[in-house]
């Protein structure tokens, strides 16, 4: 079964045993030791806000989003990502990461099933690809923002 998996992608480490992939074009900027604006009454997976080029962006901790760990303080990195809504509007979001993302090339264009422990997150992880002998879910940024 083929899918529309990107041929190259950013691999975003979530935790020791999980990384997610986003299309190469989505990555806008990797911020090292970003200055976070702490925000009370934030959602359970939101570590706070960052001011990125004058825009206030939510910063999400995917470990909390994917129920791998409670929300932690801001990681060492914030990856700013962009995507285009169906209406054509560009939206931005940032993800808090404890280690730096890196680019991978996806040579196997097969779609793989999500690991069973991630099945309940299929709405934001609609597909998975094989990268370096690991099944890596692809993160749907629009759904992440909507959910």
């Amino acid at each position: 079964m083929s899918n529309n998996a990107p041929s190259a992608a950013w691999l975003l480490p979530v935790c020791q045993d999980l990384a997610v992939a986003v299309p190469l074009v989505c990555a806008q900027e990797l911020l090292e030791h970003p200055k976070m604006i702490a925000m009370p009454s934030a959602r359970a997976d939101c570590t706070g806000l960052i001011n990125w080029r004058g825009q206030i962006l939510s910063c999400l901790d995917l470990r909390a989003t994917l129920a791998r760990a409670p929300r932690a303080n801001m990681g060492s990195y914030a990856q700013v990502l962009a995507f285009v809504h169906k209406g054509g509007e560009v939206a931005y979001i940032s993800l808090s990461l404890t280690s730096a993302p890196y680019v991978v090339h996806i040579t196997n264009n097969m779609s793989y099933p999500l690991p069973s422990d991630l099945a309940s997150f299929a709405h934001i992880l609609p597909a998975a690809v094989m990268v370096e002998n690991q099944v890596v879910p692809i993160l749907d940024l629009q759904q992440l923002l909507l959910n």
Partner: protein
Amino acid sequence: MQDHLQAHVLAGDVVMLRAGGLQLLVYQAEIETNDFLQQHLMPYQQDFLILSDAVLHAKPQLYIAIDEHMGSQQTSAQRFLLTKFFGCDWLWCWDDVRIMLDVKLPIRPLPARALAENSPLLGLVELDAPTFITSAPLLIDYLENNLRGAHV
């Protein structure tokens, strides 16, 4: 749902309320009184709460400290500035209270994805530090929701 709201301007007489690293902004008209803390307060086991030494009284005064460090130990007199909002008997403790008259501040929208469902925050303005816009009714509702089950 979009991650951005429309930009607006906050205009009028406002009050900046600081609790630890958190700065809030409300309209001055929502505040009934400002005063200095006049007595010692004892810590209470519930987040957001400090009970006064009047705990032995039939109806002790509730003091609200929304920064977790503010209520972690016994508090001396004059430690806090107190605010009483209209329509609420609680006294709110602040490290700093600053009245600003006739301001016009551009509001930075908050990303909807970041906010919990009952968040009292309405936007962000840049003063000396990022400052969240809120309102007294929203703050009170938020605290009441978070204090449910507390034996107060």
